[in-house]
């Protein structure tokens, strides 16, 4: 049996009257890749924000390796290894690529010396394949490379759980293939991954399991084939035609 890394117990978060996330329970195991899908505004980003301490849940619990971490601050989540990339990339614009990545190693991994953190950074800059840009400011990277930088920075934090919030949005198909391979490589390191993604192809290729949010509620959870055949999911998110096409592609 593989060990449980993260558990959500009836997690909820409201903003004023809006219930962005309600009664979500879910378990993440070591090394698995879980797809998180749902229409825009269904609460995917809010769920990640609750797990990483950005938002305090209004009800429910977040449990990480058996420890109740519901009330943690973002920096504590980072130091624990609950790491995420942002839907809108968040670099330190005037720092070099290497320094950006070093920040992850220096603070989340609590590496004490700056030069050690920079050495560590090189490792991850190489891993995601942006070593040629190591010494230029993050602001001058292309979008695809900025997304790789986000990945490298998160990896430098030595994550136990990595939450990828639409890392592929805005990339062309060639770039997406590169990103897919990268995510697979990351998963092979034993890091559990929650991937938020609109491209069903990506989700179907990567995920071992899929969970579906709709209006903040978890409406389905299961294997990819189960999900694309789930009538509720088809109604709320995929649509009849698209679900059929996905099935056919899967059978081919």
């Amino acid at each position, binding site marked *: 049996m593989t060990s449980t890394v993260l558990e959500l117990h009836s997690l909820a978060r409201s903003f004023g009257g809006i219930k962005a996330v309600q009664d979500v329970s879910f378990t993440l195991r070591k090394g698995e890749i879980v797809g998180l899908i749902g229409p825009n505004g269904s609460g995917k980003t809010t769920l990640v924000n609750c797990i990483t301490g950005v938002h305090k849940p209004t009800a429910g619990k977040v449990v990480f390796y058996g420890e109740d971490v519901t009330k943690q601050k973002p*920096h504590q989540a980072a130091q624990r290894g609950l*790491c995420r990339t*942002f839907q809108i990339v968040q670099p330190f614009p005037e720092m070099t690529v290497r320094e950006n990545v070093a920040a992850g190693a*220096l603070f989340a991994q609590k590496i004490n010396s700056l030069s050690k953190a920079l050495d560590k950074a090189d490792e991850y800059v190489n891993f995601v394949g942006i070593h040629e840009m190591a010494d230029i400011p993050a602001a001058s990277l292309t979008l695809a490379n900025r997304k790789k930088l986000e990945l490298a*920075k998160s990896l430098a934090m030595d994550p136990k759980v990595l939450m990828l919030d639409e890392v592929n949005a805005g990339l062309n198909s060639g770039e997406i293939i590169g990103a897919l391979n990268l995510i697979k490589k990351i998963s092979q390191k034993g890091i559990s991954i929650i991937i938020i993604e609109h491209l069903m192809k990506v989700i179907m290729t990567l995920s071992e399991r899929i969970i579906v949010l709709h209006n903040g509620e978890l409406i389905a959870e299961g294997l990819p084939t189960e999900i694309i055949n789930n009538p509720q999911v088809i109604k709320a998110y995929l649509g009849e035609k698209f679900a059929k096409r996905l099935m056919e592609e899967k059978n081919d």
Partner: protein
Amino acid sequence: MLKTANIIFILWVTVLITTPLYAENYIVRAAIMVAMFSSLALSWNIIGGYAGYPSLATAAFVGLGSYVGAVSQVNGVTMLFSWVLATISVGVVSSLLGVLLLRLRGHYFAIGSIVLVELFRLIASSWSSVTGGGNGLNIPILRWDPSTVASFFLSVMILLMILTYMMNIFVSNNRLGFGLKCIKQNEDAANMVGINTTLYKVIAFMLSATLCGTVGAVYASWSGYIDPTESFQIVLTLKVAVMAMLGGAGTILGPVIGASTFVVLEEIVWVNFLDWNRAILGILIVMIIFFLPNGIIKLGILRIFKEKLNQKFKDNIK
């Protein structure tokens, strides 16, 4: 290895400390002011330059230091120990205020910090039983001959200038400085890579304030008299921030260059146009914003100096 910035700093300190040997009194006085304002601008640099939080609380902590120093001296504490007391008090008060104030960001923080100056001034003028209120306080002065007194205070201020310079070097080579730079560029992302941003900002604010307290206490002992309006001046608060930005905020040498340029201009040129003082300050602020956003240091002075220095080394080797 000594960096170019350090060489320039050492040369400049040497020039300042030797003024009593060759220069007239008013030059020695200007040297004291240069050292004092360099200390203040270097202190400001930690919160304003590295962390990017433009604090306008400098005068509040200088004034608080003056008052703690003066009140303890009036109550029989020795001069040296009164300076220590001032330093510790400002360190403690600034950490507490930092916890409150650093919930604010950007302009709100700047406004919140400048309010401290007025608040402290009001307290100093109302709490007459301790502070003497609007009448101010007379502080026992050193009964040495005037030139010895000047040399003494020059040495003390230069010592503070060196301390604040070393504090800047320490911070910028440390994870604290790296974290502050991250906060300046993207505070949310800084939080997300595991930086305890609140703690880092409070530490930066405290480091920025503490030696301002010492400067205030030393200044009080030097001048022999303090009162609320002189001790808590909004103009002083603005000047220090302008000096740091003029020289180059977020660099180690910038605040020294800015403070020195400003004081030399003020003491030697502007004394003849006293009525224009504030107008000139205003014009300078506008000029910096438009023409010198990165300060004098980015004009390439360092580079030119470095090249000269390298040339000298080469010549010597030949």
